[in-house]
């Protein structure tokens, strides 16, 4: 069954979204949001709506379960000629998932404009219009807008300081438990609970009963879904003339009869079981950023197969390559506004490798290496790979990761157990659970199997908060008091005064953002319960409660993506040096120059640029970085999620550092109106780090992860840093990053000349992948401006 790799790679369907918006303005919309051939798949919407029409008046949790059951029962399924692992969230390989129950407006907008006219034909357009008719007033976005009044309605509209969006909601099933008992075991557990509450009749008996019944419907629906594949494969096998192909289809049939209902016995069964669970939750609820500790979960299956001579290493590698193609099939429709935040993204599925077990021992196994071989051979956007680094990470594993990095795909990214384990413990996660953390999406930290339906409550644009602080919260052109009235900058005597005014603005806007979020969370709990996903988590069946009705007790949950921290730092450092220490210019003078976007004041801009900047191991700038990061985190923690857990910031800015910079005028760090922000929370501003990559790490290390958790750091090196004996230097550099307790780092390994050539001749570089934020993207799918912002990152190479 051996196939050449180019055959496998030729199956890839690229569903990356192009960033057709920047902020609220169109950018290269005529290119279309997706590559040609990609289609909007209406089947989930069709069968979901069909069921909803039938179940009006029933309890919502049952309605959800029945609707998902209807989708799984009726959606067309397919098995492609090369597949051994099957399943899809869409009815066609080139289909895009779309959650009509969330939002139908933006999809209608996409298909009627340049962005996505080709995604649907006329029949499809007609059907979508009919389906949308049903959802008017019922979709989540409709319900949100009905719920907002007064001040919140006013700040809900995007103005450039913060954005609330359905950004992402993640979580990791307890695969170990599910594989151990099978879905059948979960059904038995649920039936046991139903019998128990019938005896006990608890105070919330009805709610529990409805929930548990919904769990049963959902689990059975997923088993039946798998059986549909078994039956299709059997049918295809009976018609197949080719013996090898018949064997393949019979294998699929046997596998899908067994899993996910029963515990998998082989690597193939484990991967197939995983994939059904993976897409099942995806079909239930539109999410992105799924994660799994891949080597920890699948390593033992490979080892057992290998020991029993059931599989060779090459065969295991091929299975992974086939799975990689399936990962690639999971695409999402984004709203045009979100395309500006998720430029180049597909669905942010992440695989975590390495790290420690519950006893603190390194878990690296042969599967770790097979995954890296699969990654290196496939070089796909999905899945992204995260390596959990700790003191016991083997040198051979580091060397292997460098081989993958050298291809330029931008992963693995590195997460540091030395920083993350204490952080998780501070968040209230018991040590044993903390040691099992995994990465989802780009840089989200989760505990597998725990009820953590993490959400990002949108993004807060920190330099804009600073800008309001420099204007007393009043827009200088319109005169509108939009931010909080902070003191007149005339009276500021130090950068600390500016910092305090900035923090007041952060507090003012974040309060509004949190009110919106907590309102929305309540709506999600009421209208979008997740009985299927709940069954995959610890404690939901036991409690008889949907995952949205309670949560794992820790502050690992919700967070706000903070954007532009470094620009605030550099601005304050420049104000401190030029305005307050050297007194070369007064603050009001500076502000009036900023209001003119530096025009006619290049000398002032040059002075501000020459002031100390974060990322150079310069204590003057770095002390301000510490004050800004720690201060901002403390303000965010003043607010809580609806279960009472403090909130926090997070560095997963995706491409928002580019897209959301549009509405922030010139800032004191020398940045022009609309110019992109520094590319990540821990990254220096583009081209402002002059002391090399060691100084960048030293600066980043001064910011305490435990206090801030602002963890995204991009570094760019030319490929020769990962060649011949320089590899040892690079390993030394990585080990030092570990020793410095910095939580995260990732690399773009590409030279500037290649990127410039790809801009001029995109046709020559269709497969060139770059790291954008916590994810990789095809360079040619990014807008020119986003490409420029990646080229502008400092390339660390020295003599």
């Amino acid at each position, binding site marked *: 069954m051996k196939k050449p790799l180019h055959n496998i790679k030729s199956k890839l369907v690229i569903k990356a979204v192009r960033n057709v918006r920047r902020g609220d303005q169109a950018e290269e919309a005529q290119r279309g949001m997706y590559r040609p051939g990609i289609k909007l798949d209406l089947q989930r919407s069709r069968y979901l709506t069909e069921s909803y029409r039938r179940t009006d008046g029933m309890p919502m949790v049952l309605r959800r379960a029945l609707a998902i059951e209807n989708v799984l029962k009726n959606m067309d399924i397919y098995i492609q000629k090369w597949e051994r692992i099957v399943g899809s969230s869409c009815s066609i390989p080139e289909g895009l998932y779309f959650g009509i129950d969330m939002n139908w407006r933006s999809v209608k907008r996409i298909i009627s404009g340049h962005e996505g006219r080709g995604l649907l034909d006329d029949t499809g357009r007609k059907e979508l219009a009919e389906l949308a008719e049903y959802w008017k007033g019922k979709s989540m976005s409709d319900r949100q807008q009905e719920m907002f009044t007064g001040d919140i309605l006013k700040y809900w509209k995007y103005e450039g300081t913060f954005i609330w969006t359905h950004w992402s909601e993640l979580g990791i099933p307890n695969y170990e438990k599910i594989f151990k008992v099978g879905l059948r075991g979960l059904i038995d557990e649920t039936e046991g609970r139903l019998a128990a509450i019938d005896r006990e009749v608890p105070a919330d008996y009805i709610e529990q009963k409805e929930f548990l019944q919904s769990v049963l419907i959902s689990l059975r629906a997923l088993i039946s879904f798998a059986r549909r594949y078994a039956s299709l494969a059997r049918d295809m096998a009976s018609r197949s003339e080719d013996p090898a192909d018949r064997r393949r289809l019979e294998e699929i049939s046997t596998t899908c009869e067994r899993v996910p209902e029963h515990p998998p016995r082989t690597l193939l069964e484990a991967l197939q079981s995983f994939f059904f669970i993976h897409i099942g939750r995806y079909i239930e609820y539109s999410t992105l950023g799924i994660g799994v500790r891949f080597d920890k979960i699948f390593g033992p299956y490979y080892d057992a197969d290998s020991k029993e001579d059931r599989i060779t290493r090459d065969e295991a590698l091929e299975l992974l390559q086939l799975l990689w193609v399936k990962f690639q099939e999971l695409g999402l429709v984004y709203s045009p506004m979100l395309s500006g935040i998720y430029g180049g993204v597909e669905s942010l599925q992440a695989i975590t490798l390495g790290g420690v077990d519950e006893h603190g021992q390194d878990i690296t196994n042969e599967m770790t290496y097979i995954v890296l071989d699969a990654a290196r051979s496939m070089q796909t956007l999905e899945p992204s790979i995260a390596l959990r680094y700790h003191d016991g990470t083997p040198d051979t594993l580091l060397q292997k990761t460098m081989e993958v990095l050298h291809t330029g795909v931008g992963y693995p990214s590195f997460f540091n157990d030395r920083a993350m384990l204490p952080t998780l413990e501070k968040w209230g996660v018991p040590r044993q659970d903390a040691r099992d953390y995994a990465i989802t999406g780009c840089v989200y930290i989760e505990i597998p199997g725990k009820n953590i339906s993490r959400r990002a409550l949108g993004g807060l644009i920190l330099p804009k908060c600073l800008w309001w602080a420099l204007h007393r919260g009043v827009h200088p052109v319109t005169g509108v008091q939009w931010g909080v009235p902070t003191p007149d900058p005339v009276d500021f005597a130090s950068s600390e005064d500016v910092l305090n005014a900035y923090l007041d603005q952060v507090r003012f806007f974040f309060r509004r953002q949190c009110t919106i979020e907590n309102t929305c969370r309540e709506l999600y709990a009421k209208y979008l319960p997740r009985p299927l996903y709940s069954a995959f988590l610890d404690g939901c069946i036991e409690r008889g409660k949907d995952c949205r009705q309670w949560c794992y007790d820790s502050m690992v949950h919700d967070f706000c993506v903070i954007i532009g921290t470094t620009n605030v730092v550099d601005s304050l450092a420049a104000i401190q040096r030029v305005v307050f220490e050297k007194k070369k210019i007064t603050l009001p003078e500076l502000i009036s120059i900023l209001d003119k976007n530096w025009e006619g004041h290049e000398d002032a801009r*040059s002075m501000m640029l020459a002031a100390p900047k974060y990322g150079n*191991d310069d204590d003057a700038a770095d002390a301000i970085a510490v004050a800004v990061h720690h201060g901002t985190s403390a303000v965010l923690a003043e607010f809580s999620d609806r279960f009472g857990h403090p909130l926090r910031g997070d560095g997963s800015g995706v491409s928002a550092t580019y897209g959301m910079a549009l509405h922030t005028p010139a800032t004191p760090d020398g940045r022009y109106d609309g110019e992109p922000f520094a590319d990540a929370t821990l990254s220096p501003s583009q081209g402002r780090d002059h002391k090399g990559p*060691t*100084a960048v790490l030293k600066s980043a290390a001064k910011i305490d992860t435990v206090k801030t958790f602002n963890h995204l750091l991009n570094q760019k090196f030319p490929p020769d840093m990962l060649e011949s004996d320089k590899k040892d230097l690079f390993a*030394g550099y990585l080990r*030092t990053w570990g020793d410095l307790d910095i939580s995260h780092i990732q690399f773009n390994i590409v030279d500037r000349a290649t990127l410039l050539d790809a801009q001029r001749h995109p046709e020559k570089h269709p497969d060139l992948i770059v790291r954008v934020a916590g994810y990789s993207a095809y360079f040619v799918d990014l807008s020119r401006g986003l490409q420029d912002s990646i080229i502008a990152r400092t390339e660390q190479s*020295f*003599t």
Partner: protein
Amino acid sequence: MGDKGTIFNIQRFSIHDGPGIRTTVFLKGCPLKCAWCANPESQSPNPQLLVRNIKCRSCGKCVSACPRGALTWSRNTGRQIHWERCNQCLHCVEACSFQSLNISGYEASIDTVLAEVEKDGVFYKNSGGGVTLSGGEPLFQKDFVVSLAKRIKEKGLHVALDTCGFVPAGHYDAILPYIDLILYDIKILDPQMHKRYSGSDNRLILDNAHHLAGLTQMWFRIPVIAGFNDSDDQIRETARIAKNIGVKKISLLPYHEGGKSKCEQIGVVYKFSEGLIPEDSWMQHLANIIQEFGVDTSIGY
């Protein structure tokens, strides 16, 4: 004496000046005047004006600041500098807001340099790196560099000395106790050619090499210039010397024209128009020759 020295750069993440991740301290002043010098600003022992015209915004402030009329401005030519009138008073640098006029070289105390090189200690530990003292010729400021090396060594760091070899032998004796590795420049073996292009012949250099190689670990470094010092014979002979005196490694550094633009920036004529960049394949050929002698080699670092 020796507490302060004149340096023109401290380069962190230096990965081409000895093993591991290093910090290189560049000291000003050199007894040789090599025509191909990549850092011509290192030759003079004193701080000096370094001009970057690309950054000039024609604000005119430097023109008013110069007491000797060495800077002029006109609409047609833009800002011009008349080096023959410049006495390195450096008033213009203070006046410039755009980093177009800069000072190359500054006086630094041992404590200051020490604090800077210690910053990357954790990187040295993980990569087998350390500190490289380079220049110019570091021993041109003998008292300073010996004290500095001693203090760095006391911190337990690996110290490399990058030297041109044209230094009285006794100078080396003073610094050797604090040095783990010598990076030793061998530019060209023919004494006449050496004198013609560097100002001095190379007898002292070769004698010192013989003397020092037995006392500490030594690597040779050759700035390889096409058609000038890149013949098979030249490289073979250098490799033979290396093998005889126990030099472990020869670094082949392909010539580049970095010195040319810097000469313009400091108002010096670049006298090496015949310099040619060697082909990659030829560099590999030379590396193969060296390996035949059982001596390690690397290209570019």
